[in-house]
Structure formats: structure tokens, C-alpha cells
């Protein structure tokens, strides 16, 4: 199991990884506020039983330009991949996620899942999401989901009616939105991220 956290701009993210039989990888990729990037990652699953658990977080508050491009290739059958990317985008930022799951012919018993969720905070910001599936084998279980939305007004009202300040309430909402990814990070980094939401 290769487990790693990459902070874009601080760490160098490998652009191509090949996994052989039975190997597994668990990565978390973070774009902190103020980071613009064009990130391209290709992960090839070349041996049976390989697995990937990939999560990403992008926080854009000003004029960042974040582009994340993931190509996940199932070249061998019997592999599992999971992807979860979450973003909060405000200011005049642009954020795009482009993720392709490719399942080669005869890569049977593949399981591949991909999710991309974003929250848009301002009308000057732009969010783009392209979750793609290219599948050439039939005995597979593949799905993807993408959403783009805003902070729920009912939740906000609930907290405010209980004496939580609006700013704090929004922060709590954002924390709960990103926590599925943030929970994978170290305590220090998590605290840094949660503070940056204030």
C-alpha cells in the first residue's frame, strides 16, 4: 500500500503511475487557497487485483485557476478504483475537473467509481466538471457522479436560529462538505485547511 498526501505547489505529484498485480495506492491531493495549477495524473492498473483510492480537494477563494485532469486506465481485469474530488470555488476563480475512466476490452470484473462535487460561492466564479467513462468490457461495475451546487439555506437557517453566527455557520457547512476528503489528512493539515475556510 502506497499512502501519500500531496499538496500541490509544495510536493511534486507524479504524473504517471503503473500498478502491477495486487498493488494498491491511496493518495490524497490538495490544492490550498491561492494555488493555481494544471495537474495531470495517469494511473494505469496493469495487473489483476490492483486498487486505487484517490481523493482530491481544491479550495479557491480569489482568482485561482485550477485544472485537474485524471486518467484512470483499467488495463487488467479484477481491479478496483475509487475517486472522490471535492471543491469549493469562490471569488473569480475557475476550477475544472476532467476525469476519464478507461476500461480496456476484456478487463472484466472491473469496479470503478468516480465522484466530483463542487460548491460555487460567487457569480464570478466558474466550475466545470467532465466526468467521463470509456468502457470496452461488459462485466463491469462503473459509475460516476457529479454535482455542482451551493450552501444549503435551510442548514444555514437552522444553525443561525440556534445562535451560531452566519460566518461560523457557513464555515461549518463547508467543513462538513469537505470532511470526507479532509478526514484523510494529518491533523496539522486539516487544521490549516479548516482555518482557511474562515
Amino acid at each position: 500500500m502506497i499512502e501519500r498526501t500531496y499538496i500541490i505547489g509544495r510536493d511534486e505529484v507524479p504524473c504517471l503511475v503503473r500498478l502491477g498485480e495486487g498493488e494498491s495506492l491511496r493518495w490524497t491531493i490538495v490544492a490550498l487557497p491561492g494555488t493555481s495549477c494544471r495537474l495531470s495524473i495517469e494511473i494505469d492498473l496493469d495487473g489483476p487485483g490492483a486498487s486505487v483510492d484517490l481523493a482530491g480537494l481544491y479550495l479557491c477563494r480569489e482568482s485561482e485557476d485550477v485544472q485537474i485532469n485524471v486518467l484512470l486506465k483499467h488495463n487488467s481485469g479484477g481491479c478496483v478504483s475509487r475517486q472522490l474530488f471535492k471543491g469549493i470555488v469562490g471569488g473569480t476563480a475557475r476550477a475544472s475537473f476532467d476525469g476519464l475512466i478507461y476500461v480496456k476490452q476484456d478487463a472484466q470484473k472491473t469496479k470503478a467509481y468516480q465522484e466530483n462535487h463542487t460548491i460555487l460561492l460567487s457569480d464570478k466564479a466558474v466550475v466545470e466538471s467532465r466526468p467521463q467513462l470509456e468502457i470496452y468490457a461488459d462485466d463491469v461495475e462503473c459509475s460516476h457522479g457529479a454535482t455542482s451546487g451551493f450552501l444549503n439555506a435551510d442548514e444555514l437557517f437552522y444553525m443561525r436560529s440556534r445562535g451560531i453566527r452566519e460566518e461560523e455557520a457557513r464555515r461549518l457547512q463547508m467543513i462538513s462538505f469537505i470532511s470526507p476528503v479532509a478526514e484523510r489528512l494529518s491533523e496539522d493539515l486539516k487544521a490549516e485547511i479548516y482555518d482557511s475556510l474562515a
Partner: protein
Amino acid sequence: MDDLIKDLTRQEYKEGFVTEVEQEYVPKGLSEDIIRLISSKKQEPEWLLEFRLDAFRKWQKMPQPHWGHLKMPEIDFQDIIYWAAPKSDSDRPKEIDPEIEKTFEKLGIPLKEREALAGVVAFDAVFDSVSVGTTYRKALSEKGIIFCSFSEAVREYSDLVRKYLASVVPSGDNFYAALNSAVFSDGSFCYIPKGVKCPMELSSYFRINASGTGQFERTLIVADEGSQLSYMEGCTAPMRDENQLHAAVVEIVVEKDADVKYSTVQNWYPGDAEGRGGILNLVTKRGICKGSGSHLSWTQVETGSAITWKYPSTILKGDFSSSEFYSVALTNNYQQADTGTKMIHLGRGTRSRIVSKGISAGHSENSYRGLVRMNPGAAGARNFSQCDSLLIGSQCGAHTFPVIHNQCPTASVEHEATTSKISEDQLFYCNQRGIGPEEAVGLIVNGYAKEVLSRLPMEFAVEAQKLLSVSLEGAVG
């Protein structure tokens, strides 16, 4: 199970016959002279000829698009006959040639108004490049509804046509739309006046018969304020070893509070089991929800064509307007489909819903391609998309290429997609209860596509269900 897959690829195409009628053609090829010739054959006004020539000049500068997930055969645009019509004294004979009438009878399209079918469906039948008959025109005109061939509309309702033509799909919109704008032959025109609810289903039926020709029809539908319309479209062609080009344009204008439902059952000749021949179906369909509270619904069942390249789209301009797209696309043998929709949200509180069900079998490729765009002004807009793919056999491909573009902080977009096959368990469950494998697959596929099929008007739903089960005879993955 392999035998069953083989069975599936040996399905028959019962609409594949050729009608023997004398036809007249314009010379092969495309040039300004050919366009002038088509225009003069149709006795068109000067402005329309100018429109065609303008589109042709734009088309000449455009590259053929290759972004689709399709292996497109080389199309020689100079090797196509752009206009073919059954011979007769005028563009639109009083008496329909009995041979042609028989053809449409055979296809289940009655061109004679019959008591039994009265008040159910009105047809406009297009045979190669001309419309050969429109039924129930009198009953419709009593309500102020105009339903006629496009050529006739140009002559008789010139102002209306001029006002709305190319208002949704500009002549230079894309390569095939530009080609269509330059050489379009016939099609249907439909205008529903203010507050009128159309008393019957309107329908166009397109038939390609002549060899070496392309069909380029144009449909224009205008639903004025508060009106209501359900429109259906069907198509078939003979079996041939050559690829034939079908490049149509459909434009729909939906005014305030109007409601239009557009249904298609596309069954062009798909080519044989080795992938020879078949129709290249390269179509631009777009509607605009112009006024507030307007509604446009697309429903399509795509089972034919060697290549389908088609994205019925809606521009949601009016506040609180809404649109839906329901699609079943089935590909078999070497068919390729790249189809989907675009929902462009401009107005406040606009809503859209996309349900796409792809089924691929044999060596086919089936792609969903879609765009949901929320512009900054689309406050409170919503979209939900669901795209499912079903794979039958291990030689086919199923792909999903959605794009979500959100610029509005109060809009919400949801998309989900799944890919799966008919599981052994499902089949076993049916077999165990005495349902044969063929029937079980039909049952499962029909269940899978039910959400879409149930949206079709009754007459079409029956046909579509039959089509699906014929196409899937004995299919197991």
C-alpha cells in the same frame, strides 16, 4: 450464451425494401449552380436562395467535425445527389402515386384519412426530397393550425417562415447544419396559434428510397403563446451496401407558456451484420424555450443508422421554463451512436432533466455526450441528469462524456451515470420461473428503458417496444 449473441446480430430489417417509382434527380455533386437548380425547382423566393447560398459559402469554409467518438467513413460530398423526387407534374401532386402510397401503407403510415384513425394522428410524409402528402389539413386549419410541407410553407406563409427560419439553428451553426441550410429539400412546417391545443398528434415520416442520394429535410415548429403540441417523427430507408447521408435540421420555437413534446423513433437502415452500408444520421435538433413558463420535451428512441450524431438541445431562455430529454439508444453489430443533449440555462428558475439509456450489443459503440450549462443569470436553476449504459457482449463499448459548466452560485446540477450488464442472476431468476432467455432479455431491457418508453405517445410506444424486442431477439450478455 454466445449463440444468443449471434442470434441478436442476425436480426432482420423489415423496412429495407425499395419502391419502384420513376424518379427525377438533379445532377450529382454540390455547387452554387446545383443550389440554384434546387431552389428554382422548388420555385423559391429570392431571399431563400440567398439564404442557401450564404450557408453554402459558410459551409465551404468549415472543416468536417471529428470530435465525436465515431469512426466516420470518408464522405465525398461531390458524390451525392442532393435532390431526388418521384416524377410528377408538380412538386406536390394532387393524387399520390399509388406505389408511394403503398410504400407508406406498408410502413404503417396511412396517407388516406380513415374513419378509424380519425382525430388520432396527422401525418406529413416525406419521400426522398419531397413531401408527398399531409393528412387532416382541413381539420387542423379550422383551429388555425398550419401543418404542411416546408416548400408549401415557403410559398404560402413566407413571412412566418422568414421570421423563424434559422432563428434557433443559425445557418453557420455547424458543418452539417450549414450543409442542410444550403441544400435542404423538404420537411414539415408547423405553426400552432395562441392558446390553441392541437387536437391530434402531428407526425412527420421520412423515407429515403432513391440510391446515391442524401436526405436533407428541415423541420420548423412554432408554438405560439399558451399553445400545446405533441409531435412525432419516424424514419426508415432501404437496405443498401452504400452509406447514405441524412443531415436534417429541426428547429422548435416555444413561446410563453406553450408546451411542445417532440418524439422520435429513428429506425434508419443500420447496415448489415458486417457493418456495410447504413445511413449516416447527422442531425442538428434544437429548441428554444423563448417565453416564461414554456416547456419542451424531447423523447427519442434510436435503434437504426450506421452512425448517429445527434444532440437534441434546449436553450432555456424564458424564466421558469423547463425542458426534458429522454433517450433510449440501441446499437448493434457495427453501429455507432454518439448522442446526447445540451441544456443551456439562461433564465431564472429554469429546470431541466436528462434521462439517457444506452444499450450496446455486437461490435457497436454507444456514447452519451451532453452539456449542462448554467449561465450567471440562471438564478435558482436546476438540472438532474441520469445516464445509464447496458452492455450486451464483450466486443462492444459504452461511453459517457458529460460536461457540467456552472457559473451561477444559486444553480444546482446533478449528474450520475452507471454502466452494467444484464447479470446472470437476473437471467437465472427469470429462467427459473419459466421465462426463456430471449424473453427474459426483452423483459429486462424493456424494464431498463421503461422510464423513457413511457414518455412516448401511445402509437409510438407500441412501435418502440416492438423495435427494441426485435433488435434484441435472444440477446444475452
